[in-house]
C-alpha cells in the first residue's frame, strides 16, 4: 500500500471517530472527570461544579457557587536580612456557574488578591457546547499557555508559591476579552484536546516596565485590555493536548501576536513588533508508586527595538518541575481518607538569554529555586502545606547571586 493511501485511510479513521464521537455525545454535559480529562478541563472539574451535578435533577438554570481560599504564614531572609514573620491572606477566589440553556454554560472566576487590594476577573465566559469536539467560548478567557495557567487553583498544588515560570515569565492567570473554540476527541487510549482563541493582546509594557526587563506579566497591569486592544491586532493562543491512558498528558501551546502600539491614532510610530511564546507541559502519574510529575518549559521571543536592548532581552526561557509523592494514605484523626504527601519543585527562569555585545559575556538576570514540601490533605479539596524555598537570583551582570530562603506554612481549600 502506498504511503499516501495509508495516510488517507488514517484521515478517514479520524473523521469517522469524530463523527461517531459527535453522534454519541451526551449533550447535557461537555465534561466529566475521568481518565480522559485534560488539563483544559480544569475549569469544569472544580468541586463546586461536581457537587452541583451530583445534586442531580434538572440542572437547567441552576446556579452553582464555590471558590477557594489561600492563606499562609511566611518567614524568610535574603542575604541574612529578614523582614520577620508575615501572615498572608493571599487570595480568595469565587467561582460561579450557571446553565443558561441546553448546551450553554456560564462560568466565572473572580479573584480577590491580598485582601481585596487587587480584584481580577480571571474567567467569565459562556461556553456553547455543540459537540464534545467543537465548542465555542466567548467572554473573559484565560489564555491557555502552559499547564499552570489553566489549572491554577491553589488547592490543587502542594506548593504555596506559584511556579516562577508561570508567574514571572508567563503572565499567570492572564485573562483577556476574547473568543474561540475548543474540543476533544478520543481514539483508543488517547484523548486529544485542542483550544484556539483570539483575544486582546500584550502591550508596550512588556518592554517598558518597572521590572527593568522584558516581562510579559507586566501586561496584567493594563486594565484596558478587557475593553480595548492595545493595537487593534488580536493575539492568537492555541493549545494541543494529548492524554494517553495510563501514560499521562502532554500539551503544546503557542501564543503570539503584535504587542506594540505602532500606530497610535493612525500615526506611524514604529514597525509592528511581535512576541512569540511556546510552551510544552507534562503531567504524568507513575502508577506503581503513585508519584506525580507536573512540569512545563517555556520559551519566549520578543522583537525588542534595537535601541532598547539589551537590558530588555529578546529571548527568555524557563521551566518548572514538581514531583509529588503520597506517603501516607489512611485515617488520621477525624479524616478517614487523609493523605500525607512529600514533594519537591525546581524553578528555573532566564529572563535574558544571550551574551553582552560589549564584553561577549553571558547575560545574567536569572533565577533558580528549589522547594521541598510536606503537605497534609484531610480531603482532596483541602491542603495544609509546609514549604521551604531556597532561591538563587543573579542580576543582569551575573554578579554574586542574592540568596533567599523562605519558610511557608499555609492552608488552601476549596469551598
Amino acid at each position, binding site marked *: 500500500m502506498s504511503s499516501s493511501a495509508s495516510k488517507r485511510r488514517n484521515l478517514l479513521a479520524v473523521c469517522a471517530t469524530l463523527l461517531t464521537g459527535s453522534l454519541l455525545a451526551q449533550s447535557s454535559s461537555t465534561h466529566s472527570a475521568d481518565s480522559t480529562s485534560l488539563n483544559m478541563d480544569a475549569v469544569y472539574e472544580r468541586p463546586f461544579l461536581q457537587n452541583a451535578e451530583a445534586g442531580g435533577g434538572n440542572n437547567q438554570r441552576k446556579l452553582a457557587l464555590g471558590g477557594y481560599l489561600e492563606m499562609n504564614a511566611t518567614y524568610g531572609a535574603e542575604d541574612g536580612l529578614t523582614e520577620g514573620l508575615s501572615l498572608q491572606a493571599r487570595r480568595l477566589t469565587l467561582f460561579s456557574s450557571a446553565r443558561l440553556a441546553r448546551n450553554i454554560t456560564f462560568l466565572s472566576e473572580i479573584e480577590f488578591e491580598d485582601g481585596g487590594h487587587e480584584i481580577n476577573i480571571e474567567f467569565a465566559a459562556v461556553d456553547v457546547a455543540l459537540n464534545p469536539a467543537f465548542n465555542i467560548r466567548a467572554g473573559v478567557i484565560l489564555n491557555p499557555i502552559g499547564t499552570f495557567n489553566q489549572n491554577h487553583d491553589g488547592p490543587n498544588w502542594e506548593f504555596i508559591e506559584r511556579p516562577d515560570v508561570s508567574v514571572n515569565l508567563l503572565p499567570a492567570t492572564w485573562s483577556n476579552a476574547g473568543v474561540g473554540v475548543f474540543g476533544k476527541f478520543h481514539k483508543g487510549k488517547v484523548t486529544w484536546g485542542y483550544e484556539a482563541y483570539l483575544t486582546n493582546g500584550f502591550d508596550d509594557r512588556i518592554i517598558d516596565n518597572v521590572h527593568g526587563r522584558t516581562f510579559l506579566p507586566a501586561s496584567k497591569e493594563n486594565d484596558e485590555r478587557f475593553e480595548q486592544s492595545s493595537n487593534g491586532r488580536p493575539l492568537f493562543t492555541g493549545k494541543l493536548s494529548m492524554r494517553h491512558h495510563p501514560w499521562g498528558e502532554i500539551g503544546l501551546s503557542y501564543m503570539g501576536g503584535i504587542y506594540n502600539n505602532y500606530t497610535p491614532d493612525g500615526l506611524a510610530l514604529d514597525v509592528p513588533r511581535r512576541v512569540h511564546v511556546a510552551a510544552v507541559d507534562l503531567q504524568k502519574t507513575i502508577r506503581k508508586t503513585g508519584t506525580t510529575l507536573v512540569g512545563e518549559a517555556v520559551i519566549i521571543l520578543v522583537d525588542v527595538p534595537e535601541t532598547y536592548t539589551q537590558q530588555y532581552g529578546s529571548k527568555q526561557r524557563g521551566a518548572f518541575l514538581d514531583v509529588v509523592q503520597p506517603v501516607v494514605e489512611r485515617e488520621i484523626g*477525624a479524616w478517614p481518607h487523609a493523605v500525607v504527601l512529600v514533594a519537591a519543585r525546581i524553578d528555573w527562569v532566564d529572563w535574558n538569554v544571550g551574551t553582552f555585545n560589549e564584553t561577549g559575556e553571558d547575560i545574567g538576570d536569572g533565577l533558580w529555586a528549589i522547594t521541598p514540601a510536606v503537605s497534609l490533605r484531610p480531603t482532596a479539596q483541602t491542603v495544609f502545606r509546609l514549604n521551604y524555598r531556597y532561591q538563587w537570583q543573579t542580576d543582569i551582570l551575573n554578579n554574586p547571586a542574592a540568596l533567599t530562603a523562605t519558610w511557608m506554612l499555609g492552608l488552601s481549600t476549596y469551598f
Partner: protein
Amino acid sequence: MPLSLRTSLALLTLAATVMACSKTLPPAPEENSLLDGPIEGLSAADQARFLRGDEAFGEIFTSTSGLGPLFVAAQCASCHPGDGKGSPFVRFTRFGQADTTGNTYLAQGGPQLQHKALPGYSPEVLPAGATSTDLIAPAVTGLGYLDAVSDADLIALADPQDLDGDGISGRPHFNRIPDYAQLRPESVELNGMYICRIGKKGAAYDLLHQTAEAYNQDMGVTSIFSPIDPLSGLEQDPEVTMQTINDVVGYLKTLKAPIQRNPEKAEVIAGGEIFGEIGCDGCHTPVLQTGSSPIVQLDHVEFYPYSDLLLHDMGPGLDDGYTEGYATTAEWRTPPLWGLGLSRDAQGGSYFLLHDGRALSIEQAIEMHEGEGQQSADAFEALSGADQDLLIEFLESL
C-alpha cells in the same frame, strides 16, 4: 477520633521551630564584602532619608514615569550595581571638543550621548567633528567623605608647578558651578569658579550637581535643577521631585566607606609599604580629613580613600581628546582606590578599570599610567614578581 490536642500542638511547635531555625536561612555576607549600607550610627532622620534615597536609587523609570525619550539606562542602580562600579554594558559616551573653551556641542545633544530611545524615537548619534570619551560608572560608596573635604585641604595637596620635583603636579579643578549649588563652608573662589571634585574629570561641584545631571543625562528625567529635556532642548515639568533628588543626595552622602579586608595580614602590610615606596601615594593619597559637616559622622574625621581628588595629566594613552570644564583631554581626577578589591562583585566577575574600563586587571591599569603616573608605573615594572604580587594583594584588600 480527632487529632489529640497533644499531637496537634506538637506538630505546630515542630513547624514553628523549623521555620524559626536561622541555620536554614542564608547568612548575611560579611560587612566588609559589601559596598552598600549606611555609615554606622546615623541619626534616625538620616537613616530614614538613607532608606528613601536607597529606594529612589533603585527606581526603574518607564515612559510613564519620565524615562527618556532619549536615555542611557533606566535606573541609577543599573549602572552602579550594589553601589559598585559599572560594567562596559552600561558604559556611556560624552562628547565635545579637545579645547577647554566650553562644550560647543550642547546644542547638538551634548555632552552625553543617549544611545537608547523609547520605542518610536531615534537614539542620538555622535555629531560629526565631535571628540568623545567612554566612561564606566565608578562606585558611589563613601562619597559623603569626599564631598566634605575642605577646599583648603585640596589646595594644600596640589602642586600645579611640581615645585617638589616628584614629577607629579596635581591641581584642583576650578570650574563654573550651577546656580543651585550650595557652597561648602569656606569654599575658595577663583574668577567666579569653584573647586569641583565629583566625576571622572572632577567637573561636578557636589553630589547634588552630579545627581541632577545623572537624572537628566543618563535617564532623560528632568527636574527643577536640570529641567531641559535632552531630546527637545526645551524646559520641561519636573519628572522627579526635588524631595527625591535631595533624598538621593542624602543617601549618597551617608553611604559607608568601603571597609578594608585583612588589614593585619603581613602581605597586605608589606604591599601597602611598597605602594608608598614606588610613589603611588603621590596621587592616591591614603588618608584625607573631612572639614565641617552637619552630619556628625562626617564632621572632621579621618578616612582612607587613596585619592587626592586632584586632576593629573595621565599622558597620551589615556588622552581621549575630550575636555570637561577646564580639565584638559589627558587630565583625570585620581579615582579613590577604596573598594577596588570588591569591584568584580559589581562588574560581573571581571575587572574593568580606568575611566572606560579598558584595563582588565589591576596590573594593566598600573601599566597604563603615563604622564605624571609614568614614574610610578615604571617603578612597578621594576619590582620583583613577588613584590608586585604583594602590591596587588594590598590593592585587592582595599
